[in-house]
């Protein structure tokens, strides 16, 4: 049973009314991996995570979590999975310790007091244990929520945008903790909008409009996008007009300014080279061939994804 993949689902589908939120989703996550889960808002990430842990019943498809059937063995899955919700969902009118104690009781943990003390120490919450959870700042709430969902030492951790609205230092510490947990053998599926976080994952999956568009390591996903990118820098005034000029040319799919540098991308390397050719001679401009970033790859994937009817158009 422990050799079963942490997650293995095929054709997972979920509809709300006549809107298909998740459409034929396949995913395999091996044990001990940190798997990033990316996609624009409303792409179905939260819905997929909720189906994995038995909070939503899929309308189609099948699969297993930790070797247990997600359709019939939700109870077993709940016992062995930790789920951290997008919105803080512990009790704001209970103290930190009371919240952890409640969770420990629900899971019927041995040596409850010790377990709670250890969790408080590990997350450096011991001194604040008597504080009401509602009075904590965003970073501390997130830390508490993580402590609560790993209290029963789950084999699989599902994190739904755990670092939204958290400062960079707290974010880094959070990810260090995630890596420590993964080294201990825990599998982690984490959804995020941050590219730097995606790059800290072993593998990533990209979802848009309920469909899985790409899956693999960061390098694989970038390579798979088939994107070519050039960087061009020059005087500020020229860069502004250049962006408009380039965007209008065939073969250029994306032009994104980063300060005084433009990232110019297209999926046909030859067409892109031809498009930028007239500008390469300008003396003020410095051109260099570059590796497309993960963000470039994602925006490209999203632009190419077919917009299904019923999805909000943007």
């Amino acid at each position, binding site marked *: 049973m422990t050799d079963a993949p942490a997650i293995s689902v095929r054709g997972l589908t979920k509809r709300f009314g006549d809107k298909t939120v998740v459409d034929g989703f396949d995913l395999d996550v091996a044990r001990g991996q940190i798997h990033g889960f990316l996609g624009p808002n409303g792409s179905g990430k939260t819905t997929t995570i*909720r189906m994995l*842990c*038995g*909070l*939503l*019943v899929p309308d189609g498809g099948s699969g297993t979590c930790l070797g247990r059937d997600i359709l019939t063995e939700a*109870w077993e899955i*709940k*016992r062995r*999975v930790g*789920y951290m*919700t997008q*919105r*803080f*969902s*512990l*009790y*704001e009118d209970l103290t930190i310790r009371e919240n952890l104690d409640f*969770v420990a009781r*629900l*899971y019927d943990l041995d040596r409850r007091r010790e377990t709670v003390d250890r969790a408080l120490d590990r997350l450096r919450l011991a001194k604040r244990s008597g504080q009401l959870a509602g009075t904590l700042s965003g970073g501390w709430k997130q830390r508490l929520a993580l402590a609560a969902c790993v209290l029963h030492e789950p084999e699989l951790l599902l994190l739904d945008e755990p670092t939204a609205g958290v400062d960079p230092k707290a974010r880094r510490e959070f990810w260090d903790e995630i890596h420590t947990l993964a080294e201990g053998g825990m599998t982690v599926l984490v959804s995020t909008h941050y590219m730097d976080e995606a790059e800290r994952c072993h593998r990533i999956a990209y979802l848009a409009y309920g469909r899985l568009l790409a899956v693999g390591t960061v390098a694989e996903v970038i390579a798979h996008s088939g994107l070519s990118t050039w960087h061009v820098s020059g005087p500020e005034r020229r860069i502004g007009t250049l962006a408009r000029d380039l965007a209008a040319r065939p073969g250029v799919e994306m032009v994104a300014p980063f300060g005084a540098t433009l990232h110019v991308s297209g999926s046909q390397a030859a067409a892109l080279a031809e498009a930028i050719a007239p500008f390469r001679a300008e003396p003020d401009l410095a051109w260099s061939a570059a590796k497309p970033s993960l963000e470039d790859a994602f925006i490209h994937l999203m632009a190419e994804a077919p917009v299904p009817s019923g999805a909000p158009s943007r």
Partner: protein
Amino acid sequence: MRRGPHFAWHRLAAMVVKEFIQMRRDRLTFAMMVGIPIIQLTLFGYAINADPRNLPTAVLSQDNSSFSRAIVTALQTSTYFRVTTVAQDPDLLDRLLARGEVQFAVEIPTGFGRDLMRGDRPALLVMADATDPAATGNAAGALDRIVQSALAPLLDGPLAGLAQGQPPVDLRIQRRYNPEGLTQYNIVPGLMGTILTMTMIIMTALAVTRERERGTMENLLAMPVRPVEVMIGKLTPFILVGGIQVLVILTAATLLFHVPMVGDPLVLAAGLLVFIVANLAVGFLFSTVASNQLQAMQMSFFFFLPSILMSGFMFPFRGMPDWAQTIGEALPLTHFLRVVRGVMLKGNTLVDTWPDIWPMLAFLGAVSVLAVMRYRQTLD
């Protein structure tokens, strides 16, 4: 002094338009605003009647004279009384009164007609269930006149002399269970029921809805806990709260209002337990339907209003037309009021109260089944 910006119509218009849009979105509030006046009009206009008539009456006649027949007929035609039982045994009269199956019991003694003709002023015994003085007051007050006018046509010829002076019959009205006609005997035990209805339903409805509104339900559902564990776990503290309320009310009833406690407190406790749990189940059911705490409050109010008006708490139950009584019979408060008044004032036993305990159990069962069916273990 610096003056603030001027009042501006366009800003006022912006607020008003926004409020109208929000009001239209909130269907339940809109339904309340239209529904409450309709319910109130229907109840006060058609259902509630402070002068109840057609009160069920049992008659035990041990005399078969034209006088006793005339009295029974007059009771019926007065419209205050409706003879539902003709008894042969005085014990039956007591039982029917105790169980609240009749409001009045009339006993005509043997030799009534003979004694009347002799001018011996025979006794006519009328026993009233006076737990609710408002329900019996008017009918009892009219008795004297009804009996007099029933006998008047028969008192001619040689009997004409009896029509003069003292009434020919010694009418004895016995106000049972509440001889002084004190309204607090009726109101204070009844308050126990209304207070419990209000607090138990609102508390539970809010407690569960709060979990959903604050988002903590998602976390709870993701953990291994069964719906029945959540339900019982949520309700248990409120059973305790209900118990404390009962103790406060009972203490006040005894010490401040001197309401007697004739029956066995254990029988009352049994009725209370069923009643409290039934109300908690209603609250739980509301919480599975309401999407926020305001809606939960509104639903509770929607249930509470007919409960106090149609249960016999505020107005005599028998004063209502049949359709309203049928609705009233479905409410747990109606039955609890009978239990609490029966035990405290009449000394009813568990056997006497059973006819009002099983409807509460049936209500509890039906509501619980609905609530558990509505309760979702997923977020679907």
